[in-house]
């Protein structure tokens, strides 16, 4: 049942390669690989600094100028609770659209584009709330585990409480 629900969730915004396949942009944080659906990605750019935003949580790295619009940058490592990334020129910002907003996700590197079958998407094992909250599912590719990022969850709760 749950797997079905995920498929429905993703199906409406997928440019379908085959009826039952999904294309992902895979990127790494440390040793781990994560993926987002390719259709949500707008652009990939090198880290070039960001203007810090006061009164926000530590995973909000600040805002950048993307051709005249201001786009917030989220530090995915910090979002997972592993502390802030110390970014270099080699770090990468993946700009994506979430709903009608554009956001950037700071990751270590972008690896490749994966084509996976929807049938291969597994549920996130219950246990840790962070995992189930931030991941939509898990898929195996070349015997690597790829976590499917739930963008809506990643960008929520950015403001400091109080």
């Amino acid at each position, binding site marked *: 049942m749950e797997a079905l629900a995920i498929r429905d969730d993703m199906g409406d915004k997928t440019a379908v390669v085959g009826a039952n396949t999904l294309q992902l942009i895979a990127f790494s944080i440390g040793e781990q690989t994560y993926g987002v659906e390719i259709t949500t990605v707008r652009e990939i750019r090198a880290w070039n600094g*960001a*203007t810090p*935003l*006061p009164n926000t949580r530590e995973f909000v790295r*600040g*805002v950048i*100028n993307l051709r005249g*619009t*201001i786009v917030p940058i989220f530090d995915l490592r910090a979002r997972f609770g592993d502390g802030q990334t110390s970014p270099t020129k080699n770090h990468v910002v993946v700009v994506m659209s979430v709903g009608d*907003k554009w956001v950037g996700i700071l990751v270590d590197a972008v690896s490749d584009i994966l084509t996976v079958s929807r049938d291969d998407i597994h549920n996130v094992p219950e246990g840790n709330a962070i995992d189930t909250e931030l991941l939509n599912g898990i898929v195996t590719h070349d015997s690597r585990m790829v976590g499917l990022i739930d963008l809506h969850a990643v960008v929520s709760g950015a403001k400091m409480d109080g």
Partner: protein
Amino acid sequence: MSDLDDFKATYFDECSELLSELEEQFAAIEAGERDADRLNAVFRAIHSIKGGAGAFGFSGLVGFAHAYETLLDYVRDGRVELTDDVVTLCIKANDIVADHVSAAKNGEELPAEYGHEEKVRFDVIARGGSGAGSEDDDMNGEIIEEFDIEFTPVRVELKVDEAEESGEDDAFDAPPLEAAPGSWEVRFTPFRQLYARANDPLLLLRELGVLGEMSVRAVMHDVPALGDFEPFGVYCSWEITLSAPDLTDAAIREVFEFVEGDCEITIVPLGATLSRSVAPAGMPAAAAEPGVADLLALTEDEVADVAARPAAAAAPAVEEEPALSFADLADEIKASAPPRPVAPPPAPKPVAPPKPAPSGEGGEDGGNRSVGVQSIRVDLDKVDRVVNMVGELVITQSMLTQQMDETLRARYTELVRGLEVLAQTTRGLQDSVMAIRAQPVKSVFSRMPRLARELATKTGKRIKLETIGENTEIDKTVIEQLSDPLTHMIRNSADHGIETPEKRRAMGKSETGTIRLSAEQAGGNILIVVEDDGAGINRERVLQLARDKGIIAPDITPTDEQIDQLIFAPGFSTADAVSDISGRGVGMDVVLSNIKKIGGSVHVRSWTGKGSRVTLRLPLTLAVLDVMLVKVGDSPYVVPLSSIVETMQCSRANFERVPSGGQVLQVRGEYVQTIDVAQRFELPTQTDPDDRFVVLCETEGSQKVALVVDDIIGQQQVVIKSLEENFERVDGIAGGTILGDGNVALIVDVQGLRATQFHKNAA
């Protein structure tokens, strides 16, 4: 289908302009300026609304507008006196027309009897005024039920002489031509385009037949032999005699109004010779006339113009008419056009002859109406795009200028000169673009008199609304945000401020309360002030209520000014009973939030027993902001220049400690709350405290606040970018902007910082 929707949208746009024009005209008329120009403008507005409504089949609106128009027509030619009662009725009628329009716009149906009472009153007044106008009325009534885009001005213009010389009441709208009314000879010669526009002479003739007894003779002698017969040629014309009691030539002309310009029509009283009527002059003039479709697209004045032309062209055809020829008419009007003293308001009998548009231009310069201004409608999105791009251009230009260091300057003098010219041009471009978006506040102000009237009726108070400075121009986006706050403020003044007539009398004030709405430009800001001469804010009650509702802690004793500001707190309302005017506790906080949203501030002052004044301070434009660029930690921040009073080095500033551990700044004997921005935003700073700077800012209600920043970089112009577009609102930050080097700088929300600081201290 979508075309029709487009037309409808345009029509409703125009309606709202016309309705505000009506409001404006009647404001002047009510104030005693009862000259013919104003009446004509009113008439034109109603006529246009009616015309469009007819085309779209809004029958309720057409019916009401027609009745109203009839009354206006009578007023205009002096048959009905423009008494105060009539003016009041007209103003009421404007409101009803507005309701009809908005109902039509929303696709709603108003109850059939809506406005009926007024309609009846129109009739009573019209009949009372004209004595014998019934025939005319009934006839119009019939026709109007269907499509009606009549050009009544023609009829009136031809009667200028009459109105002038007869002056008396018995001038029952009959020129000598119609002295023996009833029998007419009409010659109708269609042109080719009449058929091309799918008109059928037969239908026209049938319609004529309805007017009275008719005989028709087809003139066939031009029909060629079959061999020369050109299939689309026009060879036939008709001679018609018509007779019916009281039949006027205007009524006949009305039948032909849809084909005006597509045919030649001569109408003469029976007995006058037709032979001369085939005047060569008629041809070229008429041929140049636009068709009905074009007419629909014309503006009011042009319509009057076009409508007048065929009449002029036809003039030589009729014996008596040379006296009314167009040139003479124009002279006549010129003679009377200079602002001659208009008849005393109560009895403007000898109404100045309505001016035909073409010659009227000379005489219209007296008014400040924008009659001759040409305009186009442009999607606001397109303008916004230009504004944004110009904003970027300004920034790029300033970045280029900054890049020029001394060595470059010395080496490339031509380049420097070019940059200087570029700077000037961009500045000019920016001003022009801003001017496109600027609109007079009139467009919102003009909605307020109606509100005041309705409030007066509902509350039983007597309220006069004065507006001042309505030509002050502000950015359109600011204006759009102004309507709700103004509505609430005026409601509040009417409901809580102005007292009942009895109370006012008892206090020795005039029974009519005055609400004054004014707009003026003050530096880079626009001040909108709503003042009333009512009771002022009842501070005791306000304080009591604020305490009851937990808006303010019981142990705090605020100053009078602070109490006044409490009325803007959300959920605050002092009305004893919840009325449908105000008192639900939403209202004044809407004012505050709306105004804040557009970067303005609100300030209220009150004098017990004498009245209160709410001042809105608004930015001139939302697109470009003059700012001071400062550094906090390693990040660039900008502070709006309009809020900065002065800056100074920390080493020279006079700080004092307060028990909370914070600092206050002493400036010229005043103690000012101090906010260390780095500390507040939790940004690390290595700057020596003495090398830091104080930026003294002024916020709402002249409250000052001192911001401590690490460095001051300079002044510049920036384009405001929204943070919320891709993120969400951040406390203490009003938005972002992009600097010349491509980095993002955040705009400090001075007012917001102050408020959150309070929070923190309180917590």
